[in-house]
């Protein structure tokens, strides 16, 4: 399921999705069409543009909130020209599972995009690094300031929704090193220990002041 008003980009995303073995059951070019299609097809995941007709503001975000509320089995991946942490926060405030929010140009990094898509479809979280950077800007510096440079990087990747393995690949270190960093972070930030990818994200986000 994809909702995007730019035809060019919609074609591109559909191609990417099909290459990755997803089946695209419906396409929509506005929020109303999106909601109708979700009701009809109940897809595993909806890829939604933030800015859509008729208002070209945040129709996508509002539609995504409706989807998450009415059809919790449908995950939502938002795509946006610019990521705004406020939109992400609105999405995440209710539920962090099955939610993603990425810059449109991330689609161009096909493998990463597909990985994020799978993660979200499976109930995980995918946040654009820019969203995470914007979240970090807002926090009182003290606790985050206590982290080392490396720990901040790991925290940012955690907030994006990556697993230990994913972080290890990204930073080119071993998984056990990542686990050690994460333990340090959780300890320094007084975050509750949690299992599973998205609950970890929830903890991070709560710390960053987004949800809970």
């Amino acid at each position, binding site marked *: 399921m994809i909702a995007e008003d730019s035809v060019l980009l919609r074609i591109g995303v559909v191609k990417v999705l099909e290459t990755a073995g997803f089946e695209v059951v419906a396409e929509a070019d506005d929020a109303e069409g999106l909601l109708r299609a979700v009701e009809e097809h109940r897809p595993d995941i909806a890829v939604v543009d933030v800015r859509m007709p008729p208002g070209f503001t945040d129709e996508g975000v509002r539609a995504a909130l409706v989807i998450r509320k009415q059809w919790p089995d449908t995950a939502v991946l938002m795509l946006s020209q610019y990521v705004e942490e406020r939109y992400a926060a609105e999405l995440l405030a209710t539920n962090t599972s099955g939610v993603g929010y990425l810059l449109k*140009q991330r689609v*161009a990094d*096909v493998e990463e995009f597909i990985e994020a898509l799978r993660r979200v479809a499976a109930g995980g979280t995918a946040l654009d690094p820019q969203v995470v950077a*914007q979240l970090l800007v807002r926090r009182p510096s003290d606790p985050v300031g206590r982290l080392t440079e490396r720990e901040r990087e790991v925290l940012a990747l955690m907030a994006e929704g990556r697993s230990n393995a994913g972080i290890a690949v990204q930073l080119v270190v071993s998984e056990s090193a990542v686990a050690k960093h994460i333990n340090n972070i959780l300890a320094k930030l007084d975050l509750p220990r949690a299992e599973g990818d998205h609950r970890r994200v929830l903890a991070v986000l709560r710390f960053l002041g987004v949800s809970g």
Partner: protein
Amino acid sequence: MTRSEGRPGRRARLTAQAAFLSTGVLLHGAAFLLWVWFSLTVVYAPGVAVAPLLFATAGATSVTWLQRRRFATYADTDIPHTPPVKAPDAFRRARGRLRTAAYWRHLGYHQLAGPVLGAVEAVALVLWVGSIGGITYYAWYWMLPRRWAFVQWSDGSGWKMGVVGLVVLPFLPRLTGALLHLESVIARRLLGPSRAEELARRVEDLAERRAETLAAADAERRRIERDLHDGAQQRLVSLAVNLGLARATLTDLPPEARAVIDEAHREAKEALEELNHLVRGLHPHVLDDRGLDAALSGIAARAPLPVQLAVDVPERAAPAVEAVAYFVVSEALANVTKHARASRAEVTVARAGDTLRVRVVDDGRGGADPSGGTGLTGLTHRVASVDGTLAIDSPRGGPTTITVELPCTLPSAL
């Protein structure tokens, strides 16, 4: 003020003068009758004396309008409007009007100067009618009933009237002209705006026009942002996506071809990044949607140095003011990055009453001078465009603090 068609002909001028005098007698006569009514009621029925007073106060505005029409039509004199009282309903408008000096000047014109002017006009009118009547007496006396024909051919008084009329008539146009001029001067003084009111009105006009200009510039920025967003950006994204797809799927290409695709892919993404930066600088749409708080984290996060952001704006400011505040932070952080050699910066935005205070602090080397760089000059201008102030505290060696204060509302239009 003269009309553009040039001077009216002699006969037209005389007609206009006559019309001016008669309408004057009518309008001022009405005021005079109000006085008569008032005097009589005061003496014989004091309780009813309120009625003529009410008539006078309530009618003043319409009579002012009539007088303005009269001067414009017959005396070629445009009396400038006094600033209208703005209020949501008629009752409050009327009440507000009673509090203006202009209203009482108008009333003074109608009720005090009016009867006197009316009397003078009546005399002038009588002179006109009388002298013309005297000169032409023998042409129409036979139409009068016998007993009204008090002037007889035989005793010669008809001749005398004709002679008096002939002597007086040549002076009348000039006399009426002088009266007209005098009345115009008085009317302009009493019915038109005073110097202070005129200035106040001018300032209001200018403020309105400036607000319109600002809004137009703002709308233009938004339009450009929208055009880029719907056009170039989408195409670039789609190009990057296709190149990414090619990179991911075409695995059996010769290494040279792969390298070219890789390069194109990277460049497309970089171009997109640059375009995003440019468009954001114009006017981010999240600023419209969610306000300053939401929009600023974007700039703060993209600055190449750690930026601490605190925004406390419980109530949104006018769109143009928000746009200026956004621009201030964006430009200030760009300056910090370019010149300050700072290791970190802090941005606070807070609303205190009707003032939006924006502070950008860095720990750089200081020495920022608004007269030096174009960046700070542009900033000062942009801040001044909404009546804001900008203060820079930047001793050599640092740190630098830029404080901008913006009024949250703009006069009208926005």
